């Protein structure tokens, strides 16, 4: 070939032919594949209903059993190993450990199914820092750059455009500004009271006047009426509790904002979300973990306990109950029913063949849609080292706040995948008009009991004390006892349950 590069005649004809083919066939957007991901509700309902579970034949003697392989259970196991105690098993009902931190992987990226980040732990969060030192995320007081959220961290879709940042971009009018300023002042006061801590073992009281009223009422009492601020507070309540500000206590609503020291860095995040931590822990602890082992009975046996699954009876001296606490009343002899409810969620992982268009700045890690019923989406592969992602995975989050948790769970059982697909696409379409042409696949996860809902009175309820103070041989380690579906809380509860169990076993 001499001279300039040109389009050859054959290329031209091929091009025309392909245009003709596309022109003939492409009347609608390409079909979107997908379905429901396994949410474990089958064995969950089986345990609850107590039917269909066979008496196991085998039995095993083991000093300590951990029930539940989410962050609390894995953290308990991590602590035991770290302290040289290896005589335990961890029983996980699902086929994979991880709980709310479980994750998936496809040919584009790893992605989370629920929890997807950890705020940089403050200097007092000893256990969390120790874990991250173990995982080489924290070295000599410095956080590993590749584990911190990459720029740009967050963007907000409002007035038809994406703009940089979130909280700082929200106030619009002088009255918004005034209410936001006042709100942050009140948050500062709350923070300096020392009662709002992460983990809550660092100083949370067991009663607070704020526990008696709802967050919405608290805002009313302080004359905070800016619609933008109210939307923002609702957003944060949906984010951490899966409920609106009228449905959670002011203690919980304020906790979201006042519990963490002001740290510029972070948060910590990985493509698979907190599944990264789960996978690192499983690499070390995998030998102790038995999956597909739903525990359907825990009963007293002498001074110890007997834990029953479909495959074996485990006779042990102590049990760390790290499964959701509401399951205990169906399984553990004498355990009361929990007084609080759980917020249902739906999450979805969307596999995109290309980046959709969107007015304003480029995609961030966290992408918030103002006035949307969803929490927006997180770009899973934002935390990859690739500089030019073409395909992508987005994790979309929605807390079902528009009806009672029971009604919402009923809806979850019956609503079809294609209805969810439409809900998701309609939500994203506002910001990305061509989203339907970009999405290849949508996998939907239904989480019936995603988060505890700390309604007014939660903190002071006597049943909560029961689980909080259980002194063995069974220890409750799940974060729902604190009303906080947070990594640090789960990790701390798991570690502290393991500490107490160790004292019992050695004493």
């Amino acid at each position, binding site marked *: 070939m001499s001279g300039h590069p040109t389009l050859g005649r054959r290329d031209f004809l091929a091009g025309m032919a392909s245009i003709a083919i596309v022109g003939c066939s492409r009347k609608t957007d390409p079909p979107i594949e997908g379905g429901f991901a396994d949410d474990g509700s089958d064995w969950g309902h089986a345990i609850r209903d107590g039917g269909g579970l066979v008496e196991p034949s085998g039995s095993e003697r083991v000093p300590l059993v951990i029930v539940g392989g989410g962050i609390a259970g894995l953290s308990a196991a991590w602590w035991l190993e770290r302290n040289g105690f290896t005589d335990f098993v961890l029983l996980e009902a699902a086929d994979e450990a991880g709980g709310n931190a479980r994750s998936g992987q496809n040919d584009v990226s790893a992605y989370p199914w629920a929890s997807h980040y950890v705020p940089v732990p403050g200097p007092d969060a000893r256990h969390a820092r120790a874990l991250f030192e173990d995982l080489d995320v924290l070295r000599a007081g410095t956080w590993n*750059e590749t584990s911190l959220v*990459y720029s740009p961290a967050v963007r907000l879709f409002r007035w038809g455009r994406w703009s940089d940042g979130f909280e700082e971009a929200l106030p619009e009018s002088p009255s918004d500004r005034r209410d936001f300023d006042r709100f942050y002042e009140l948050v500062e006061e709350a923070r300096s009271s020392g009662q709002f801590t992460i983990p809550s073992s660092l100083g949370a009281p067991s009663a607070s006047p704020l526990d008696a009223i709802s967050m919405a009422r608290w805002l009313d009492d302080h004359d905070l009426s800016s619609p933008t601020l109210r939307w923002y507070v609702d957003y944060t309540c949906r984010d951490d509790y899966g409920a609106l500000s009228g449905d959670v206590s002011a203690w919980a609503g304020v906790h979201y904002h006042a519990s963490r020291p002001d740290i510029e860095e972070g948060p910590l995040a990985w493509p698979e979300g907190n599944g990264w931590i789960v996978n690192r822990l499983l690499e070390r602890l995998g030998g102790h973990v038995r999956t597909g082992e739903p525990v359907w009975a825990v009963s007293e046996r002498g001074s110890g306990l007997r834990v029953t699954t479909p495959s074996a009876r485990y006779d042990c001296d102590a049990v760390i109950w790290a499964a959701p606490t509401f399951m205990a009343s169906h399984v553990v002899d004498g355990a009361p029913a929990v007084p609080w409810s759980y917020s249902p969620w739906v999450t979805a992982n969307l596999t995109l063949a290309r980046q959709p268009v969107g007015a304003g700045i480029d995609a961030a890690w966290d992408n918030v849609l103002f006035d949307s019923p969803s929490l927006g989406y997180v770009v899973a592969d934002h935390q990859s080292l*690739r500089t030019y992602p073409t395909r992508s995975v987005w994790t979309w989050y929605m807390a079902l706040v528009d009806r009672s948790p029971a009604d919402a769970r009923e809806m979850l059982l019956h609503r079809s995948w294609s209805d969810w697909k439409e809900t998701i696409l309609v939500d994203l379409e506002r910001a990305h008009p061509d989203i339907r042409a970009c999405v290849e696949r949508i996998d939907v996860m239904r989480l019936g009991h995603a988060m505890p809902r700390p309604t007014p009175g939660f903190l002071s309820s006597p049943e909560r004390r029961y689980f909080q103070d259980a002194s063995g041989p069974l220890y409750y380690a799940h974060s729902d006892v604190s009303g906080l579906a947070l990594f640090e809380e789960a990790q701390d509860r798991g570690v502290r349950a393991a500490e107490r169990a160790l004292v019992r076993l050695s004493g």
Partner: protein
Amino acid sequence: MNAALFVTVLVIAACGLVYELVAGALASYLLGDSITQFSTVIGTYLFAMGIGSWLSRFVVRGVTARFVSLQLIVAIVGGFSSTILFLAFAYTDAFRLVLYTLVLIIGILVGLEIPLLMRILKDRYEFKDVVANVLTFDYIGALGASLLFPLVLVPYLGLARTALLFGILNGVVALWSTHLFRETLGARRVLQAGCVAVLMALGAGMVGAERITRMTESTLYADQVVFTTTTPYQRIVLTTWRDDMRLFLNGHLQFSSRDEYRYHEALVHPGLASIPTARKVLVLGGGDGMAVREALRHPDVEVTLVELDPEMTRLFSENETLAALNDESLRSDRVRIINADAFQWLADTDEMFDFVIADFPDPSNYAVGKLYTTAFYRLLGQHLSRDGMISVQSTSPLFARTAFWSIVETLRESGFETWPYHVYVPSFGEWGFVLAGKGGYATPNQLPDGLRFLQASQIPQLFEFPLDMTAVAALPNRLDDQILVRYYEREWSRIAK
């Protein structure tokens, strides 16, 4: 009706269509989304022609003189339309406003032309013949223009000169009309003088078009576009003008064949020539093969080129014209080409290198910015032999001074000693590079043969910065806080305005 009249109609029609196509094509080039650009430009234009036709009723007296003046106005506005749009894009924020205003004005003027012409002719010929002939040649002219535009005009003249050429044709028609309709025309001398003035202005524009469009900087393709392709990663555009060939990626000038040797010699030799023991050289980015060409001048060196876009390395190794630019270096058996994302590839490989050339596009967005972070340089450090060095293209220390020193700071923060330097590259301006290493640096006494710019004796001078480029306080660029992208954006947007 005589042939001269037919030609007049034909040229007028062709001119009208060309201005419309120029506006549509320019808007597509500059804004992307050609469907939207073309359909809104055509819609506005046709509607404006309607306004023009309606306005023609208000032209009562001196129709012929008005027709000639109209031609002259169309010639000027249409002829310079492309230049005006280039300038509007480069120097204002109101490109769309200028675009549609211009389209509206030209549309109205062109819409006036045919009704006026018909009225001039209606007394000379039968009305049915006037309508039939004028419209026939109007449509033939439109066909001619629409075929010439993509096949001949844009490839050989470019958009700026095409518009100017048709402005000149419009002017010639005006001049010709003063002869054709001499019986009905008053003030002929004045009009003819006007025609000459307009033609001279357009002629001057034709000569100066290159300079004007150059002024609008590297984001625009003022020259003849000889090749474009869109890959999953970027838009590749190659232009030529006389003996100069330019490569644009996503609208950013990558090199001009007239002076790229300055850039690439400076990027490679001050560092590589200082490590006589260097064997393994890694080139990151730089799929055009120019940095590889320079590295291969060192006879003992083997090169690994990691370029994301396979289309780039394919073009620059297979296409004769382009391969000639890099001395066919990408076909050398001393070169290994890997098409991969540099960051990911480095994280996955165990290989060690003696010299690394980071020739990435400027850090103008968060995606490319990742390749200028402490995380990236630390990783690079793990693949560098003990006496190895890195050479980093680091944007302009003059135009983006804080950004340049932020790159230096990022390398220091990543544990390197740094030796920043700069050269002058006419098509870029003052350009900066940073050498980084952990084992000290001494400027080389000897350079390989065949260089066109660098002399060993002058290398120490490159490390001297004049007062307007000396170090300023800047923060290091981190994955989780890409301050460099913000510095870069702030400083270059100041230059663009």
